[in-house]
């Protein structure tokens, strides 16, 4: 295990076609560390769900925007933040989804935080514990 702080920063256009790209970049980042396979898979699933939420919900109405992903190891924790500069978190009675994204994220993570970022947008910070 690495005790230094290792980081990934990535910004892509908020489009469905970029979701695999983000997942593969994070997979590459995880590859550099000895992560159990099941945990790595959980991380990739959670990151995918967070990006899907940005693409489906963050920039409703406005034509374009970005997904910002950052990942870092701090001692025995992996923290991944997914940010958008969209309209802010809002419930939708007309959501195209089944409402499984957030619960899946919460079930996979050691801790998940959702918070608005000024002046607008949402940050979802997911923490995974590397201790067995």
């Amino acid at each position, binding site marked *: 295990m690495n005790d230094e702080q290792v980081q990934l920063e990535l910004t892509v256009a908020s489009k469905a076609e970029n979701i695999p790209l983000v997942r593969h970049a994070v997979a590459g980042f995880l590859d550099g560390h000895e992560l159990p396979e099941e945990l790595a898979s959980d991380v990739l699933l959670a990151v995918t769900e967070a990006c899907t939420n940005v693409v489906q919900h963050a920039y409703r109405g406005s034509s374009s925007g970005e997904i910002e992903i950052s990942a870092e190891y701090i001692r025995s924790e992996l923290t991944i933040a997914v940010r958008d500069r969209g309209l802010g978190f809002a419930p939708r009675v007309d959501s195209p*989804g089944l409402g499984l994204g957030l619960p899946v994220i919460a079930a996979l993570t050691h801790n998940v935080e959702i918070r608005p970022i000024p002046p607008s947008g949402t940050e979802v910070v997911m923490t995974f514990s590397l201790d067995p």
Partner: protein
Amino acid sequence: MSARAISLVRHDGDACVVALNGEHDLSSVDELIAVLEQATSARGMVVDLSATSFIDSAVLGALIASHRTAEASGRRWALVVGKGSGAAVRRILELTGLDAVMPVYAGLGDALAASLPSQSGLPT
């Protein structure tokens, strides 16, 4: 990374198999929904995830919708999750408890047999 594909194969006795290869998420879900719709014309259908390395809740939503449509019209529907299914596939099915809601088989043969219980209309 891994190549992805969605294939549709019609089997004798009017069963359709939709197989997902590689990773699937929001970026391929529209294509998946279209293929699943084509398959619903058959008497029974099987979604084969035995070579699927990744799915997320967007894909799961499409599978659940397809299963519901089939059920509502009295058509058979089954899922195959095998050794070649990726960890994320198993994980999301386990988390959502989906195996309790829809029939899941370990092999395509069993799933096909279940989706067409009475070959050529003759009960066994």
